[in-house]
């Protein structure tokens, strides 16, 4: 990126939106050169960081970027895993100062927040009123609503509530020309004054999953719900064999057909089960001698969570029904220790960090939406790849069951990174993780999985697999919304039409 152009833009933006919002100190820019992706190689230092405080600020930023053709990447919590930010030498728009709750509408059961509002902070406020935003993102405290929508995240209780897309009522975004667009439909909320496009098609969906490629989300209205009064958990163990894993998947698959029965289900493989057990019980013995015995004891585990709104008995009945189904798949009820911990994490009295990485350090994380019946196949391929790459044990994979019609595996090969004292050793291991990621992408596609991102690693697969006709329409919309391709250039699938036309 031409430094003169960056300097010119910084000067203009300082004069227009205020000097304190435009940060160019080298160390500050350097702190923004990465997200949580492990797969990128080409880290760059952004030209400037901008902290807008209003939609007008965002408009001004985009107008200036558009004028000078400067790339723009928006971030919320900066916990994205596909590396959009890493090669960006242009502008990073950090929404952390646009974090206000604008409205909590109890009559319509919605709330409206600025794009940079932190999900957990908003949930704290909602909880005090007896409500919640139930799609808890699996990971990361800093995550914001703008990024949640841009990514169409899932979350820990997605089994019941599905992805974010199902809960977005409408939003406000600044598109590539600097124009502000307000989407939504009052068909859903007849009394809401926010969404005036009632007789028109709803363009909200254009911004969902777009990773900021169509516009920068400055405001979003979401559905909320009443906090369940009662909860219950159940840990169900399956044999630590391939057959046991298959039985566990079949159990989850059957269970989800009983609508309203489970709130959430986590399927942990035997390695993850063992490691979680070790973490929660405080055991520090990970010697090889105890491994085999421990794995047998742990088995594959399905953690079930139930919610009740009328009575504890309601929850308990759900548990009883679920355990009958488990029995028919050779699942054995082993108590509530782990499921209770997960439930507590979701309901707020347990720290996020006590639960999320119970299995250890995260090496490679792949997110896909995979049909339940294909999970054993994908899991087997995963184990084979880990073995072939010589990745050290213990490792773990954690699979979170989600959605009405899909599930989303999270894979966590575990490795005690702190033992990698040599940089070369670290780099060699990282290469293996990258290769593991590559292979898993391929395997996921083979099993009919749906990609869970539109950029970077998924891009070549998406361009190959997606319906060309549909993609060309989407690319056309991108050109309409972002004519100079300033949002995430070079990253997403959406700009392909631009390239072709050139």
């Amino acid at each position, binding site marked *: 990126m031409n430094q003169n152009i960056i300097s010119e833009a910084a000067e203009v933006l300082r004069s227009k939106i205020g000097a304190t919002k435009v940060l160019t100190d080298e160390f500050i820019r350097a*702190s923004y050169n990465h*997200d949580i992706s492990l797969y990128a190689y080409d880290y760059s*230092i952004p030209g400037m*960081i901008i902290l807008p405080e209003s939609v007008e600020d965002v408009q001004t930023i985009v107008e200036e970027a558009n004028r000078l053709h400067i790339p723009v990447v928006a971030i919320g919590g900066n916990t994205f895993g596909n590396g959009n930010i890493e090669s960006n030498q242009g502008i990073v728009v950090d929404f952390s100062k646009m974090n206000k709750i604008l409205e909590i509408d109890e009559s319509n059961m919605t709330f409206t927040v600025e794009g940079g509002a932190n*999900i957990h*902070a908003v949930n*704290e406020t909602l909880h005090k009123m007896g409500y919640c935003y139930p799609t808890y993102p699996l990971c990361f*405290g*800093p995550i914001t609503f703008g990024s949640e929508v841009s990514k169409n995240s899932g979350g820990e209780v997605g089994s019941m509530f599905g992805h974010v897309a199902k809960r977005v009522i409408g939003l406000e975004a600044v598109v590539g020309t600097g124009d502000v667009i307000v989407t939504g439909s009052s068909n859903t909320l007849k009394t809401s004054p926010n969404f005036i496009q009632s007789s028109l098609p709803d363009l909200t969906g254009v911004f969902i999953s777009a990773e900021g490629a169509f516009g920068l989300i400055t405001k979003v209205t979401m559905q909320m719900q009443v906090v369940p009064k009662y909860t219950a958990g159940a840990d169900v163990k399956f044999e630590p064999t391939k057959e046991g894993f298959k039985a566990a998947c079949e159990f989850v698959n059957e269970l989800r057909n009983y609508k309203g029965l489970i709130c959430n289900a986590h399927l942990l493989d035997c390695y993850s089960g063992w490691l979680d057990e070790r973490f929660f019980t405080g055991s520090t013995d990970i010697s090889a001698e105890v491994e085999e015995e421990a794995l047998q004891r742990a088995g594959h585990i399905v953690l079930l969570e139930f919610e009740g709104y009328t009575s504890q008995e309601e929850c308990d009945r759900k548990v009883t029904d679920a355990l009958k189904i488990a029995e028919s798949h050779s699942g054995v009820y082993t108590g509530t220790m782990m499921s209770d911990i997960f439930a507590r994490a979701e309901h707020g009295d347990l720290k996020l960090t006590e639960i999320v990485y119970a299995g250890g350090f995260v090496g490679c994380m792949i997110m896909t939406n995979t049909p339940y019946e294909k999970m054993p196949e994908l899991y087997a391929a995963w184990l084979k790849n880990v073995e072939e790459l010589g990745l050290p044990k213990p490792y773990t994979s954690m699979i979170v069951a989600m959605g009405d019609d899909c599930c989303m595996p999270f894979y966590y090969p575990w490795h005690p990174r702190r033992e990698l004292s040599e940089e070369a050793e670290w780099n060699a291991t990282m290469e293996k993780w990258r290769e593991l990621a590559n292979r898993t992408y391929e395997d996921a596609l083979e099993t009919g999985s749906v990609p869970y991102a539109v950029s970077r690693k998924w891009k070549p697969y998406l361009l190959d697999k997606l319906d060309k006709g549909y993609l060309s329409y989407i690319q056309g919309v991108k050109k309409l919304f972002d004519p100079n391709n300033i949002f995430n250039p070079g990253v997403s699938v959406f700009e392909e039409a631009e390239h072709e036309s050139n």
Partner: protein
Amino acid sequence: MNLTNNDIKDMTQSIKDGDIYNTVYNCRCCGSCVSTWPSGHRCSLSTLAQGVQINCRGLNGVIKNIKEGKIDFSSELADYVFRCVSCHVCVENCSEFVNPVDYIHDIRMQLVERGLVPDSIMEVFKSIDQNGNVWGEKEDKRVDWTTGLNVPLANEGAEFDYLLFVGDSSAYVPRNQKTAQLFVQILNKLGIRFAILGNEERSSGNEALKMGEAGLFEDLATTNMESFAKYKVKKIIALSPHGYDALKNEYPKLDQNFDIEVLHYTEFLAKLIEEGVLTFTKAVNETVTYHDPCYLGRHNQIYDQPRAILAAIPGLNLVEMDHNKAYSICCGGGGGGIWMQRGEGVVVEQLRYKEALETGVETLVIACPICMQMFEGENENNKTNPIEIKDIIELVFEAL
């Protein structure tokens, strides 16, 4: 503060050679360290609100870039890292056991070695070096607070069971002197055999260490440990959680034979209550809220003992703040924070003070002299609606 090119080169090389580079690779930049969920840990750097990455998570990237030769140290970075108040929110939150405060500490040490620290911090170092305390007071005034009280000195030769480590803030700051005076009266009432080092006591060194002056800390600790040995000290009661942390956790690192039982005064009093030695005869009819000091709580996991003392005081009603125990918000005074100018944005002490006011109680109770100074400072800024601030010692004294 001006960094020369040679300074920058040296520091950059130091980062490249140092262990910190391996530490940053343990970090996956998930942001848990600065997370606000579920109960709202508040990182002092993040609350200064210069963006989602400008905190220990972002410093990870800074260090990597220094390593890779893409950027150099700068005076802006130096100014920034001294705003951390070492509250251990990041340590508490980190799921990868990275201890993100290590980034800050490592960078601070390198800056200190070259004298490249903010002026206010440099003044503290000078005071410690010249006077043995952080407050710029004369060494021989350390025992002024004992005037008129029966406070035995270790060098007087009488046998004692406990050495009372007073600490700089209780010895020199008038508001905290009052607390220290009440504590020795409590000890005398209970017939506890104790002594103080008097003018032989030096700053515990906690602040020096946390601000990156490891050499100065070592000198102070060595002097104090020599005094402990000279008077055959077996047990220490520390009035300040900062001194307590240094004595309990840092001194043994310097001397593996350091074998002294170190108690914070809340541990000591709670134990006496449990044993039936300390009982209360008067009611203290107040509704209070308790602020967990970082160096007592997150640094040393002492959450129950202060509450046990408060629960034992007749008539006292404790109302917890939303953020309590491990989720407590810092008073802003630790790690040199008490001497640092605040930048733009929300500062943690204001968040905490506001939260205490919102409980609607009469009294904010603390167990740390630094917290006392920070919150009294907030009261100065809020003269229309201040909250009474008391040390637990004062409540215990009232109830005796």
